[in-house]
Structures are given as C-alpha cells and as structure tokens.
C-alpha cells in the first residue's frame, strides 16, 4: 500500500468519524470543532487526489472563515439550552433521511455506471492547480462565476439592511 493510499484511508476514516461527531455532539462548540476537523480531513482527501488548490480553499474558506463566524456566534449567544431542541421537527428528520437515502443511491449509481472514472487520470492531476481553476473560472464559466458574485453581493446587502433596520 503506497503512502498516498494509506493517507487516503486515514483522512477518509477521520472524515467519517468527525462527521458522525458533528451530528452526535450535544454541545454546540464540540459539534463545531468536529465539523472543523471534518473540513481538514476533506482537505487532506483533496490533497491525495492532487487537488492542492481545492484543499487549501477548503481550509481557507470553510475552516478559516465560515466556521470562525459560526463559532463566534455560538460563543456570543452562549448556546447551552441544547436539551430543548431534542426530538423536535420529526417531519424534518424523516425528510432529511429520505434525501440522504436518495443521495446515497445516486452515488452508488454513479460509481457503478462508470468504472473507468474510479481512478485518477494523469490529466486530472493538472486540473487541481490554481492556474487551471483560474483559467476555467474566467473563461468557460465566466458568466456563472459573475452571477454567483452578484448573488453573494445581494445577500450581503440584504444582511446589512436587516441589521440596520432598527437604526433608521
């Protein structure tokens, strides 16, 4: 077993374990920390698949920015009343389980449909670099890229208006 494969399994098991930790911890901070560990494991998985840029972005954006905000809010609100949340929204849980099952099914179909795609092609290695992702984003996918930027801007403006409502 090569080092790469060993690391793949290491990160994979870590990712699954921390994902389970995220949804089973009652303490919100513990759940958030588990999620951060999960993001790191995902970044490790991307690295074993030669996608350096994606791995770093995973840490920079999710673990470094979004989760910092999540942890910030958890601490600011000092969430402790997690017992009250237990066993509510049963319909939501059923729906969630159904969607998860459909997703698993899709994954299974995908993996069985194209056995040749299971292995990393040599061309895939060059796909993970900053250059190729930048090229793709600013040429082929320029319009979706700009549209998403606009959407994020709209969300930002909306958030600011909601926050400032009381002032005006």
């Amino acid at each position, binding site marked *: 077993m090569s*080092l790469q494969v060993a690391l793949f399994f290491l990160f994979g098991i870590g990712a699954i374990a921390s994902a389970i930790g995220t949804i089973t911890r009652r*303490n919100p*901070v*513990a759940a958030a*920390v588990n999620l*951060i560990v999960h993001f790191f494991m995902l970044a490790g998985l991307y690295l074993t698949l030669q996608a*350096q*840029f994606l791995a*770093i*972005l995973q*840490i*920079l954006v999710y*673990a*470094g*920015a979004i989760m*910092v*905000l999540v*942890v*910030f809010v958890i*601490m*600011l609100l000092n969430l402790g009343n997690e017992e009250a949340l237990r066993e509510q929204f049963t319909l939501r849980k059923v729906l969630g389980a159904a969607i998860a099952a459909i997703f698993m099914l899709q994954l299974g179909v995908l993996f069985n449909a194209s056995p040749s795609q299971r292995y990393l092609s040599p061309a895939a290695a060059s796909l993970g*670099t*900053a250059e190729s992702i930048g090229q793709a984003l600013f040429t082929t996918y320029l319009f979706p890229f700009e549209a998403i930027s606009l959407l994020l801007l709209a969300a930002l403006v909306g958030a600011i208006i909601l926050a400032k409502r009381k002032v005006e």
Partner: protein
Amino acid sequence: MSSLVLTLIKGAIALNVALVVAAALVYLERRISAWIQYRIGPNRVGPFGLLQPLADVLKLYTKEDIVPYNASKPFHRIAPIISIAVALSVLCVIAPASYLLLDDGTKLFIAVAPNVNVGLLFYLALSSIGVYGIVLAGWSSNNKYSLLGGLRSSAQMISYELAMGLAAVAAVMVSGSLDMNQIIASQSGGRWNIWFQPLGFLIFLVASFAETNRAPFDLPEAEPELVGGYHTEYSGMKFGLFYLAEYANMFTASAVMTTLYLGGYDMPFLPTLLGLQEGTLPRVLFELAVFVGKVSVLLFLFIWVRWTLPRFRYDQLMNLGWRVLLPLGLANIVITGAIVFFVR
C-alpha cells in the same frame, strides 16, 4: 535517501530553528524594550542575561498547571496546542534559501516543502486557523474576560485577514505565482515587490501586526480591561505555549513578508561580485544570511512598534480594518491590475 525521510529531516531542523528563534525573540524583546525605555533589562542569568529564556522555560515547566473548575477540560488542553501547531506548520512553505546542487545533478531545495503550487495560500489558510487556539482558549476557560478576549480575537482576525489577502493578491499579480520559490525568483536582481507595491506592503504589514495579536493590535489580551484576555486562566507550560506561539507567529509573518515583498533571499549584485555560483554551499549560506538579515529587520520593527505605539480602541481597530485597509486593498488591486495589463 527517500524524499519522505529528507522532508522529515528538513522539517525537524525547521521546527528546532523556529523554537530557538522564538526563545531568542523573547530575550530580544525584553532587551530592546529595556533599551527603548531606558532600563537595563534581564542581565543576571548568564552573560548579558543570554540564558534568561532557558530560565523562563524551566520556570514554566515546573509551575503548577491550574485548570479552572467548570472549565471545558479537553478544549482547555487542546487550545494552546492548536496555537503552537499552526504557528509552526506554516514554516514548511517558507524558502530561506534556494537550492543545493548535488553531485548527481539533482537540486536539493532548502525549503521543507519546496515548489508548492499554493504556498502563499497555505500561509493565509493556516494563519486564519490560528484563531481557533485563541477562541477555544477563551471559551473553554469559563471566564468572562477570557471569553471577551477570544471573541475580540476572532472578530479582529476575520477583519484583517481580508485586507491581508487583498494585499497579497496584488503582490501575486506582480509576481505571477503563488509558489514561494517562484515569487522570490520573480524578484531576483533587486526587482523587489516593495518597489512596485509600497501600499500593498504597508497593508500587509499592518494586517500582520493584527493577525499576530501584537501591539498596537493586542486587544485580545489587553491587560487593563481584560486581565490577561484569552490566557487569563492558563498557567505553566500551557501559558508558555501561547507565549511561544506569539513569537513563532511573528517569525513566520516576518518570513512571509520577506518572501512576498523584500525579495526573499535575493541580494542584487553581491553574489556575482563575490563569485558565488548558484547551487553551491557558499551561495546557500550567503542566501540564508540575507534572508535572516531581512527577517531580523522586520522582527526588530515588530518589537519597536510594540514599545512605541499605544493600543488601539476597539472601534478604531474595526474602522481601520474595514474602512481604511479594505478599500485601500481593493484600490491597490485595481491599479495593479491595470498597470500589469497595460505594461506587460
């Protein structure tokens, strides 16, 4: 020797160098602050007080480790480890010298992880992770001053990370790469980025001060308002790890600024004047000396500023980050982009 073993050896050397530098910085900080304040400073332990850091570490190791009652123990334990681990792991992408040409023609790169395609992003990513050490320390201590320090730190780091990233983007546009070795190569012969990016350098410098929680941005541990901030409830070597992480962070931030703006190990004219061929041992030693020299200047600046400028107020800190540095960073990108587009 396989590349894995080689990398491990280089990593071990880098770790030891960083820890020794951090200890030396503690001593230098005390001596320089004493000099600035017209005091004498530590001068009892060893010649010129040089063994003071050793005595400090010994003291920290033998102190009682107090964990507050009702603290969240696992997080209280892991927070200083996160801080120091993040501070040290950034070192692996830093290139303090170029390469050594071996007898069989292969290049032995001095950096632990040379030619990483996303080297600079790695630094930005890990420096944004460093906040967890402080936030978790603040939260797990179960102390309102600690919590306030942790919250301040996370707000501060998110704010200044953006400005830092924007400044780095402009520098990357000039250099044309995210790879630390290539960023340095693009600045060879004295074409350092600081000449083309004076504003970017200033933004990056200010943001680095904020990211490392150094004065005038040391609000997370502002002692008149927050006792000791996030490390109020830490004692013994756990406190020592936070302390060490601060100096390790200073060291890595200086090394990254040297790489990004000051040409890294580049020194124009002198190597050719001295007849130092690329890839030879004297050249590598020369490059190391140049790199260490530049980093030392920045480290002195860090210490000098701390003992000169008063601390910011919290609203001033946020205003500076969001209303001054962020727009300046964006303008810098637009101007740099236009110049790079029309000139090249």
